[in-house]
């Protein structure tokens, strides 16, 4: 029996899953200290299913906490930034292309220092210990608690980053240091971006993961717990605490995989309608379609493996900008209103007309149009049905345009609606062969967390002069698959999702570093083994 939890910005959801059956589910508002909200939903799901906590085999938590913190610029720590590679790369200083307000949050303690490697492993410029030590002391004396260290071609040789960490240990042992070698993909700026964002969030991550653990401890749950990451696989809680950026894409991934699981569909578009945005993603063969281009998180370019998501600015809390004197007119002029993109977000329960506020939101219109009933409809302003219809048509059009942009081919596709805001969508969506609102649609995210996959990575340095490339690939893929099976996956569900090859030109002969990642579904009814 598995417990999936989704800690979102507005709600914390939980589902209890046995095999393919949802035994029970619960929702409660996310609390300032996330512990209380988690305890509340876990107690509710256990009670609803009349299940004892000792029956839980493992707990999976998906959270958008860190993504939201970045998007909303909340609780970010100032980062001491060290880049090793000067004079190369100075044309594009750290945080190039970032939104300026986010740059402000990260502070201005930036050091462009000599160092770095060339592609053949030789030194770009020599490591200057004295300059690094001076920078570390300045970061310490500025009172910063976290730092990011990136090095040109640090992927083929992590030594200079490691030396820098050692100097931090000597001069400022309390500063948490993130190094770019942890985010193993080439593309210097994107790797450095991830390193800086991670450093900024690492303190919060420690607290949040501790809160998760505290909630489970308080309830006496001893089952192992995992966090779901970008590509829908699980990582250990301690790993997530060190690398919170790895959870950035887990929200959409979980809602899409949850939608697939709840409907049994392998190829469909999934619309996750929340309070602020609607995320549209495509399922192909049961997997979220990956973005082949760099993904912007909170306006920052990254190169994580992430689902290809189109976010449109329409959710339950989206503001409708229309003059109040036009509410009751018998026509709605096209240029008299705009929908969003701003949203009242979690303040829906106080600011919208339905809840006694004075802001016209998409939810007010959905209730006025009879698509949903919640809040207090008697508090709605007097509106002409023609105006309401016109606005609903506009919602529909925005959703349909989004669907059309995410479609891979002409013709109609099944559409799965999940998330709390799915009431905004009428029955017929143009371009959809069917519109499915599966049971438990509002907790699809938590379902996605509960069915998260296990991954296994295998890596080795191979000389193709002694082992042919095909053979090396094949044997490494086998190793990765074995690891996934060992971690508790059902062998029938395993697939290779990533193969990465970096030629090590500084090694003799034809030598490459090969990395393979395989994933698989957890075998049902099995406990999770060691996550590779």
């Amino acid at each position, binding site marked *: 029996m598995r417990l999936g939890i989704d800690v979102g910005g507005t709600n914390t959801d939980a589902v209890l899953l046995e095999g393919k059956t949802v035994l029970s589910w619960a929702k409660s508002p996310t609390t300032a200290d996330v512990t209380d909200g988690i305890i509340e939903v876990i107690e509710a799901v256990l009670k609803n299913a009349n299940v004892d906590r000792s029956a839980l085999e493992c707990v999976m938590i998906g959270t958008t906490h860190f993504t939201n913190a970045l998007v909303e610029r909340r609780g970010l720590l100032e980062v001491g930034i060290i880049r090793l*590679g000067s004079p190369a790369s100075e044309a*594009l200083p750290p945080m*190039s*292309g970032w939104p300026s307000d986010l740059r402000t949050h990260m502070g201005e303690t930036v050091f462009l220092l000599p160092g770095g490697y060339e592609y053949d492993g030789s030194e770009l410029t020599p490591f200057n210990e004295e300059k690094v030590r001076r920078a570390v002391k300045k970061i310490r004396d500025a009172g910063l608690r976290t730092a990011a260290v990136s090095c*040109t071609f640090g992927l083929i040789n992590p030594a200079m980053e490691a030396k820098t960490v050692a100097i931090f240990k000597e001069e400022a042992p309390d500063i948490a240091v993130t190094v770019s070698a942890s985010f193993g993909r080439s593309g210097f*700026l994107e790797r450095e971006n991830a390193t800086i964002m991670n450093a900024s969030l690492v303190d919060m991550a420690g607290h949040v993961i501790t809160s998760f653990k505290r909630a489970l401890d308080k309830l006496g749950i001893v089952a192992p717990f995992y966090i779901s990451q970008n590509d829908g696989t699980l990582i250990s809680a301690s790993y997530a605490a060190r690398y919170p950026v790895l959870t950035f894409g887990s929200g959409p991934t979980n809602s899409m995989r949850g939608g697939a699981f709840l409907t049994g569909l392998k190829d469909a578009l999934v619309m996750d309608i929340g309070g602020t945005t609607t995320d549209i993603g495509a399922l192909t063969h049961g997997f979220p379609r990956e973005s082949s281009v760099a993904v912007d998180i909170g306006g920052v370019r990254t190169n994580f493996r992430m689902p290809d998501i189109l976010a449109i600015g329409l959710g339950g809390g989206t503001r409708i900008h229309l003059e109040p004197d036009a509410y009751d007119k018998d026509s709605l002029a096209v240029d008299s209103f705009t929908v969003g993109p701003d949203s009242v977000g979690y303040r829906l329960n106080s600011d919208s007309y339905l809840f006694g506020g004075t802001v016209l939101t998409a939810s007010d219109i959905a209730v006025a149009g009879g698509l949903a009933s919640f809040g207090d409809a008697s508090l709605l302003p007097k509106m002409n049905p023609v105006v309401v219809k016109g606005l609903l048509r506009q919602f529909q059009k925005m959703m349909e345009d989004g669907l059309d942009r995410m479609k891979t081919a002409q013709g109609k596709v099944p559409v799965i609606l999940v998330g709390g805001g799915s009431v905004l969508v009428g029955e017929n969506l143009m371009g959809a062969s069917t519109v499915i609102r599966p049971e438990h649609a509002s907790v699809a995210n938590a379902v996605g967390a509960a069915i998260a996959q296990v991954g296994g990575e295998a890596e080795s340095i191979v000389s193709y002069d002694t082992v042919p*490339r095909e053979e090396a690939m094949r044997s490494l893929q086998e190793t990765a698959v074995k690891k996934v099976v060992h971690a508790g996956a059902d062998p029938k569900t395993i697939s290779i999702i990533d193969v990465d090859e970096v030629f090590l030109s500084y090694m003799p002969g034809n030598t490459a570093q090969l990395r393979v990642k395989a994933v698989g579904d957890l075998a049902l009814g099995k406990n999770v083994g060691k996550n590779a």
Partner: protein
Amino acid sequence: MFESDLKPVTLNQQALNDLAVGCAFLGSGGGGDPHYALLELSILIEKKGPDFHIDLIPASKLSDKDLVAPCGWLGAPTVSLEKLPSGTEALAGLEMLEEIMGREVNAVFPVEIGGSNGLAPLILAVKTGLPVVDCDGMGRAFPESQMVIFNVHGVSASPAVLTDAKGNSFVIGAVDNITEERVARAAAVSLGGICHLFEYVQSGKQVKDHAIHGTLSIAVEIGRSIREAKEKGADPFEALLDVMRSFPHYGAAGILFDGKIMDVKRETKQGFSVGHLLIEDFAGKNQMEIEFQNENLIARVGDKIYATVPDIISVMDRETAHTITTEQIKYGQRVKVVGVSAPSVLRTPEALEIMGPKAFGMSDRYRSIEALNGWKGSNDAQ
């Protein structure tokens, strides 16, 4: 878009974004991902204030005696992802060039329009105020510097000036253009695999006579057509093919393959990114293999050839029509392969000797992309 109706073009930030998209596509997989160059350009422009823009001048506006300097980066795109510019390279090279020539350079333009090199002279222009001529020497991107129309027409590559991020510089005076490439490549390899280069310095008259005209504004239009199609919810590939068929230099265009990247073999060798990629169609039946040396050179399914150099072969994200340059291709990406006929000046027997399949050591005789695929011919076929 003929010489006579070329007018000065003004580029604002939106047009530069479009230009980067168009350059990436024309790069045939090479020339480097324009993202970093665009970012560098945007940072410079932001400092100049909201009304700043870059003007492109048509070659017809040059005086015959003007001194014009084509420029760009030479090396392996895989390196340019990791070793970013210091920002001093082009300026240092320009100063040296002017010293050698004993006079000021009057204008610059990209030696190749494809990839990030299409943006390189714009960065220099923002820093120096030099005008940028709306033309290039390739109409696409090629891996080697002698693969340029100026070499086909007998213009000398020397004196060439090569500079790196650390302040190293080389002046190359080679007796022929192949030697210039060899020396420049060897220098680039020893300096870390990526360098800035001025070469084929020429007079205004030579630019008018030899360059491939209007390619910067063509790239802007390519980017714009893809963007506008996406804004309208129309198919960006249809828009791209339509616009490619409308340009006098190009004309034949189509989708060569559609599938998922199954294998990428890519290494940095002798200053190039070389390797191959395998794309499998969604039925799991056929695989297209594309060989590359910075640029995509040949696309085959089994024994059947679908396109070879100098025709353009670009791999694009099948949903967004974003061009994925060779150094950015990853396992699992879902892509469409788009082919376009090269400008006819690259298809003459003399040009094919220098930039056709034989120049890359391939035994396959060049056949045009329209003949291989049964498409309508190119627009400027001779």
